[in-house]
């Protein structure tokens, strides 16, 4: 069951790889294409029983488009109450693989031991490099050697073939969690319905969502608040892309090694109303590649690159160093992915510049005339799955463990999972759990929360300003969030169709354009050839199998 890779099996695997792959598909299941039906989805979803164990210092705000800001906490709740009685496990042993963007902690370390003791089961954590995670999972799946418990982030669903792994290699959790059955696991029941929706395929529930949020955004345009404020610049002054361009002129001082911008295309494009993938206008479906506003947006970005306001290292594609440039004040405005505005960011920033303070601009429309907008992402993007070969009692044991891992913010379990054992991995200083050296080494590389976690909250013990800033920004922008078409719908498509959905050639051309190496006209040529080479087949398939049958899901 365990995907142990030792020296012997490695050599075997190298030689046998093609043959292993060949042995793959014993019972070839007919792929069910399309998406979930309304009634099927409703029957599969768990009931929602929100947790009331802790009260937020800054309460959530609901936006007009259905988004809800994350509750924020300024102080860490003291004397956290346990939400799970006894140990959840029954002595079972399971292997779990999760992505980790950071240094992999040593196996069997004191934190893992403490967790296993608290869980009453042996969970062998095998975190794998997050940057290459997509290439690690596919061979395991091809060889039918997925671990007992695996994390499959949903932005790689097409690559993993998640829609085809469910039911063939991943266990159906509907019989355990659908409807009121979830109440057996109160912490899982406190995960909002939208997050569970991202775990349903073919009207059955397969996944367990982590880091769920109703304020799911791809990102924002972030800036050095300390530096811009000193120059008297506030977000209220930036209402259109023209304002951004003017800021570029004002802030760039190349002689001093300071440029106004890092790459912003990924998040600025929304100002032109470029969707994540699809858009429906007048009842007709459009792919983002064929929308005229894409070219308009690119034109602006091309000018930005040519203007000299974009940092040369960004033009050279050195994205890995973009945080370092930002901390050092070499760039002042940058694209920021959601989830990057937190305690660790603050600590890194302050280490480089003691005045460091991150801010984010409000969502805008490109001309500043219509209200700002941003498309919401799925309510959960980090989803874990159990292996289909587990026996029912083993699945129940894992779900009990998941229930423990999903204990709400501030509970005794949450403290152990996120800060380790007191006295060993953290000490309480002024009511703030502060990591010890062992804590930094073993606990801070987050692993268990990738199997299950409570809904996201904003909390940065020891850096309340960060919490206040981020919560205030969310509240100010919550009305800008709108649901895109096919929101939270898991769509399963035939492989040959899914290959058409993204185009490496267009993505390359777009990148070259916003780095000033390709004109908009050249991008348009690449898009035109994509249109000729099967885009209609993709659109036709989507219209017939998804839009006409299930609607937009908005």
């Amino acid at each position, binding site marked *: 069951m365990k995907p142990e890779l030792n020296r012997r099996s490695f050599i075997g695997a*190298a030689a046998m790889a*093609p043959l292993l792959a060949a042995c793959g*598909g014993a019972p070839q299941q007919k792929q069910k294409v399309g998406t979930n039906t309304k009634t099927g989805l409703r029957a599969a979803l768990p009931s929602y029983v929100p947790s009331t164990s802790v009260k937020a210092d800054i309460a959530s705000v609901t936006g007009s488009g259905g988004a809800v800001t994350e509750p924020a906490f300024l102080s860490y709740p003291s004397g956290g109450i346990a939400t799970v009685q006894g140990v959840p496990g029954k002595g079972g042993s399971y292997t779990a693989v999760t992505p980790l963007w950071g240094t992999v902690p040593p196996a069997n370390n004191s934190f893992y031991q403490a967790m296993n003791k608290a869980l009453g089961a042996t969970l062998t954590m095998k975190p794998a490099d997050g940057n290459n995670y997509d290439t690690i999972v596919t061979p395991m799946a091809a060889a039918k050697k997925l671990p007992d418990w695996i994390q499959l982030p949903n932005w790689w669903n097409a690559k993993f073939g998640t829609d085809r792994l469910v039911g063939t290699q991943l266990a159906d959790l509907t019989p355990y969690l659908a409807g009121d059955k979830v109440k057996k696991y109160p912490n899982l029941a406190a995960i909002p319905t939208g997050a569970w929706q991202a775990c349903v395929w073919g009207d059955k529930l397969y996944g367990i969502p982590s880091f769920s949020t109703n304020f799911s955004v791809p990102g924002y345009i972030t800036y050095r608040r300390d530096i811009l404020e000193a120059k008297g610049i506030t977000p209220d002054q930036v209402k259109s892309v023209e304002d951004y361009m003017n800021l570029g002129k004002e802030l760039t001082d190349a002689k001093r090694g300071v440029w106004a911008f890092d790459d912003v295309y990924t998040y600025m494009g929304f100002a032109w109303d470029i969707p994540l993938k699809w858009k429906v206008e007048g009842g007709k479906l459009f792919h983002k590649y064929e929308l005229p506003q894409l070219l308009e947006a690119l034109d602006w970005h091309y000018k930005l690159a040519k203007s000299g306001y974009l940092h040369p290292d960004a*033009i050279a594609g050195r994205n890995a160093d973009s945080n370092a440039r930002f901390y050092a004040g070499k760039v002042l405005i940058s694209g920021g992915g959601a989830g990057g505005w937190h305690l660790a960011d603050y600590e890194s920033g302050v280490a480089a510049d003691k005045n460091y303070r991150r801010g984010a601009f409000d969502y805008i429309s490109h001309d500043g005339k219509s209200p700002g907008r941003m498309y919401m992402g799925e309510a959960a993007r980090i989803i874990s799955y159990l292996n289909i070969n587990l026996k029912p009692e083993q699945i129940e044991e894992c779900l009990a463990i998941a229930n423990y891992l999903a204990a709400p913010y501030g509970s005794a379990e949450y403290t152990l999972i996120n800060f380790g054992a007191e006295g060993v991995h953290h000490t309480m200083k002024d009511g703030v759990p502060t990591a010890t050296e062992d804590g930094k080494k073993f606990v801070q590389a987050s692993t268990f929360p990738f199997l299950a976690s409570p809904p996201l909250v904003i909390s940065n013990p020891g850096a309340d300003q960060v919490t206040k800033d981020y919560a205030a920004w969310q509240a100010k922008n919550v009305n800008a969030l709108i649901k895109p078409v096919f929101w939270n719908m898991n769509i399963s498509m035939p492989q040959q169709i899914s290959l058409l959905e993204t185009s490496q050639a267009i993505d390359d051309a777009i990148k070259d354009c916003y780095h000033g190496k390709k004109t908009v006209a050249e991008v348009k040529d690449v898009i035109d050839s994509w249109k000729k080479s099967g885009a209609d087949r993709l659109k036709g398939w989507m219209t017939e199998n998804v839009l006409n049958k299930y609607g937009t899901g908005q």
Partner: protein
Amino acid sequence: MNEGLTRRDRLRRDRSLLIMVAPAVVLLLIFSYAPMVGVITAFQYYDPLIGIWDSDWAGLDQFQQLFADSRFWHALSNTLYLSFVQLILFFPIPIVLAMLLNSVLSERVRNFVQSVVYLPHFFSWVLVITIFQQMLGGAGAFNQWLRSNDLATWDVMTNPDTFALLVTFQGVWKEAGWGIIVFLAALAAINPGLYEAAAADGAGPWRRMWHITLPGLRGVIVLMLVLRLGGALSVGFEQFLIQRDAVGHEAAEVLDTYAFYYGIATTNYSFGAAAGLFKSVISLLLIWGANKLAHSFGEDGLYRK
């Protein structure tokens, strides 16, 4: 040479050589020959979740798509162009370096220089390119110096027109030192008595180089050239992958990055396999042709029957 010897006698005679080569053969069998079964996928619509047996047959469809793709032909011509530039500008440098180093009399100086030029070989491409970016990039030391003196800047790191020169320069900086090893070994094998005799007959340094050193190196040079031609379609992968965004994908696209982006990265594995197989077949033909050519010049080349 083998006349009169039975296979058994030859086995006995070469026993130690065969034992020495065995691990390498085993390694090749496991990591190079056995996985070759996977080329079948180039003739399929391969889906890793279904497996090789059950994936649909595509016949030559993947190859038809490949040959119909203008980006593929661009990647091929770009690869050949880069390979040609490197052959002209890179290939002679280790030979010249080796001869220069060989002429240095002080052993201490020679060892020092040798260590310094070896060192970059052990750097990863990520590091090498970071160093280049820090020095020559648009915000690098050189351009900041130009800016501070109110001079026009020159960002060579993002210029697609000079990219071939840039990657060759990076290659020379990183690998030229390492490349001299084999030539130094060949130089050491030249009988010093020849130089002494030539000098006694009044031959100057140039004549000695022309009539003794270069002929002494000829076999190795031809061997390296054969290998180089065989690898003409493998100009490197990481170096281009890392700098692809910097100069735009057109300047940096080589066959290996093409197969990666249009095959593996987009999960179109069969298409990637077809591109890879095409590259391997051409490389095989190249190395065979280069070897034949070497024979016609009277050299051993890579192998001889």
